[in-house]
């Protein structure tokens, strides 16, 4: 399944300092965020996996956005992705 994946808020540092990835994720018809996370960790992440995932979800402090909406609005881990969806992972910032 073709997806646009983006990392921001400093999270891109774990992903080879690259913010945007156009990827083809293997999927049997359907693909949930729960399945996407380990795939991104194993295929895109280059550094410090413990700062990206905790258990089967993202690390606290990371917001997941699906097509510009908080993933909380579409079922978090069980959110079903569609071809062409844009999934953004944003680390919340604290500095000022």
């Amino acid at each position, binding site marked *: 399944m073709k997806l646009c994946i983006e990392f921001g808020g400093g999270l891109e540092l774990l992903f080879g300092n690259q913010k945007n990835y156009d990827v083809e994720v293997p999927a049997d018809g359907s693909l949930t965020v729960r399945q996407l996370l380990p795939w991104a960790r194993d295929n895109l992440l280059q550094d410090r996996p413990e700062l990206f995932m905790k258990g089967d979800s993202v690390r606290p402090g990371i*917001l997941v956005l699906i097509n510009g909406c908080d993933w909380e609005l579409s079922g978090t881990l069980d959110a079903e992705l569609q071809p062409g969806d844009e999934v953004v992972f944003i680390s919340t910032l604290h500095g000022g």
Partner: protein
Amino acid sequence: MEAENARLRAEVEALRARLRALEAAGASADAPRQQPDGSSCTAAAAAGAAAPAAAGARPSRAPPAGFVSPHGLTKPQAERYSRQLLLPAFGPAAQARLCAASALIVGCGGLGAPAALYLAAAGIGRLGLADHDAVEISNLHRQIIHSEARAGAHKAASAAAAVAALNSSVALDVHTEGLTPANAADLVRRYDLVIDASDNAPTRYLLSDAAAATGTPLVSAAAVGTDGQLTVYCLGEDGPCYRCLFPEPPAPGNCARCADAGVLGPVPGVMGVLQALEAVKILAGVGKPLSRQLLLFDALSGRFTTIKLRARAPDCAACGGGGGAAAAGDAAGGTGAQAEGPAGGACCSGRGSGSDARAPRGRMRPEDVAAFDYAAFTGQAAHDGAPPPLRVLPPDQRLAAAELRDRLAAAGLGGGDDRDGAANGASSSGSGGSGDSGGAAGCVLIDVRPTAQFGVMSLPGAVNLPFDSPERFRERHVASVLALASCGAGCAALAAGAAARDGGASGYGGAASATGSSGAAGAAPRGAAARAAAEQAAAEQQRPVYVVCRRGNHSQLAVQELRAAGLREVFDLAGGMEAWAAEVDPAMPVL
């Protein structure tokens, strides 16, 4: 409706009082500052805060009559804010609401600086400035409210001075004690709105909880590197709080500090100005605030994106359950109006007067905020300053800066001779380096700071092997150091040696950086064979190893790892590069 009428009556009375005070103050031409709102000064004094200027003398002359301002704006106000008054989207009613409103800015740094200046310039009635920190020169690239002349001063007082110079009609409360769990709710409830311009996770949770516990809208922003984020919490019926979004605190490793990660000056500037804008909208009751929306700013691609956020969570530890909507409805005045939504300028009812009818939004109450341990919850201290000094190594494994200088010079690393003669301020470090850790020198010098810091300045001949965590240092770098140490003076076969020579003679900056697995001494072999090789290398140590970092914390942990791997002649620089700069080389920049 009853509550709304009462609110409006109170508002009109407050405006009348301000009008009289302003006209009286305006009549005395040499009064340095007008202090229209006496009550706020009293409030500030009661809180132990130092108001920067006392209320000026107020001649009790009757106000002149002659023009009609249906919104209670005075002549100086009408003239000063005319460009906003002429704006159809704003106008005199909105301006009058803003002039009667108050806001607390927590953090007078990169975000708070522009937020305070723009709020004052736009005509907010009263501004609270909270920060416990002092102005440093390295703040000034982004904290433009301060100045070189005020370096060392309290940031809150420095910011107040700049605000007073910009708009003397703004009443100011200076809170140099900063925000603590004990004072947060009391402080926040004295303002119509609060701005989170802080720089750390525990303060962000504390402020959000205090906002939820007092029913105060919170305009929150953050900026690190080239990224900015902004949203409004605790506003309206369904607006979430910080805990709704982040019920669990982030790992400290996910929290980049500006002091470590860097920040491009205009980025917090942009975000702070946007905070002022959101606050103006909410206080004046115009436009649509960024509640349930998160604005993202990517400075490098010049892109603003706004994304839709979840609503307030019913199970939120701060704003869920408990009082919430029901309590808000019961409360007289402020909160009831606030729940009607932002368009009515609703949250401005308690403005400036110190009267407070706002209720907690949810289960968390002011006393709960005071009792909560935010440092333990987030695992971080509530400041952006230096971490406390570690005491891990025994004293005989640590070197003072002067001792290390002598040892490096004796080993042919770094020039120790012409230090006193460097009258032109040029760094000694660039002049005398004859050897390097990889090859010719009689010792190995390891710098465990992040590569970006190493790139700004380093000691000649140092090899950069960044320390993130004990595990990663063990995994990635220990074998490299063992190889370097077991390789005698003159040995030049190592990759790290070659890397070190490439840049080792260039003084500050440009020295060798061997990061990650591609770095020093090639890929370390793994497993039992690796252990055997490591033991062998440790047993054959030929050269002493010196480890330096920024402050002398990580260097101790790195030495611990190296000793655990079998090295005996390994020491760290007590106090790190900061001590080196203070005691050995004043020309070296301190980051």
